[in-house]
């Protein structure tokens, strides 16, 4: 009986390194049937190259910290099985698009959160602690629309996926506008008209061209496309009624 030596099958991982575009380092990790892209990045950093920088937190798909570009598409790496995205035994991992790169796979999300604020996302209540809690019916039309968009955890995937963001630096982006929509539909909010005004500021909601990259890539199946369409309609009506 011959002793056959089975070569360990490996996965080739190309990871963007440094701060400049186009710098990649290639690593080989063992091929395993069940591993996520985050598993692979962690293995590279712990066993192969401790200088690799990346972000993660929960590892179980609820925090959104591990978002990166994998084989061209922005995704949560802890929720991406290698077997589903590898192409001929290769995966290419880059930082999220549309945000300035700090190092390797880490991006600066400051402008993402600045735009979040610019889109008018601060809740202002009208009641005080002495008033009874607001009785908001969960089946009311407005609440349903708000609820359909409320689960955003600011992971930045939609922002990275959006082409208008990459073409127009004044564009507020899908996440910020999606949040504005939830506030507009919140019947407790003091000034919904102001939400519309802020959402149309700069290159506001009207700059969205409904390409739908955001809703195609959102890891929690939200639809900024739908939210922004709602903002557009209400902003148009407000404008035509003379609201400016």
């Amino acid at each position, binding site marked *: 009986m011959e002793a056959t030596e089975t070569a360990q099958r490996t996965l080739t991982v190309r990871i963007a390194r440094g701060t400049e575009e186009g710098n990649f380092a290639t690593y080989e990790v063992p091929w395993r049937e069940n591993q996520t892209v985050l598993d692979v990045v962690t293995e590279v950093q712990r066993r192969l190259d401790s200088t690799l920088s990346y972000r993660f937190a929960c590892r179980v798909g609820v925090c959104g910290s591990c978002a990166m570009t994998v*084989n*061209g*598409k*922005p995704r949560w790496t802890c929720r991406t099985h290698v077997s589903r*995205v590898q*192409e001929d035994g290769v995966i*290419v991992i880059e930082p999220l698009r549309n945000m300035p790169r700090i190092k390797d796979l880490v991006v600066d999300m400051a402008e993402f959160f600045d735009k979040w604020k610019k889109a008018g996302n601060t809740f202002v209540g009208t009641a005080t602690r002495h008033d009874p809690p607001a009785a908001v019916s969960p089946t009311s039309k407005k609440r349903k*629309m708000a609820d*359909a*968009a409320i689960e955003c955890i600011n992971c930045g995937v939609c922002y990275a*996926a959006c*082409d208008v963001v990459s073409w127009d630096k004044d564009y507020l982006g899908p996440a910020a506008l999606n949040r504005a929509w939830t506030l507009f539909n919140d019947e407790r909010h003091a000034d919904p008209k102001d939400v519309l005004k802020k959402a149309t500021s700069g290159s506001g909601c009207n700059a969205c*061209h*409904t*390409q*739908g*990259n955001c*809703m*195609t*890539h959102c890891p929690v*199946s*939200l*639809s900024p*496309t*739908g*939210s922004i*369409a*709602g903002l*557009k*309609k209400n902003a*148009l009506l407000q404008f035509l009624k003379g609201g400016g």
Partner: protein
Amino acid sequence: MKSPRNHRAYWAFLGHRLSGLALGIFLPAHFYVLGLALDQRARMDAFLKFADMGAVKFGEWGLVLLLSIHMCFGLRLLALELLPWSSIRDARLSWISWGGALSLFVGVIFALGVI
């Protein structure tokens, strides 16, 4: 590398924008030729005869297609932006296929009329 743009709604955006751009560039030429009816009838007729050439007819067929596509995809946008959505994720994607099919149908009718 997979493209994050390989999905229907993105094709609809591209089709709408590129068809609009092509039509917008074509329009001044279109208005110019029509303006020939003012004082240069003979030139207009000469142009129309020239336009009988197969290559020009193919270009006209393309323009008819582009106009249909632009309108169909544009109507979808108006629906998305002004009408309620049945669900937050219903971006009326079926309108894209229908719009494409309708445009091809219009193109076929045009082709049948000029062959």
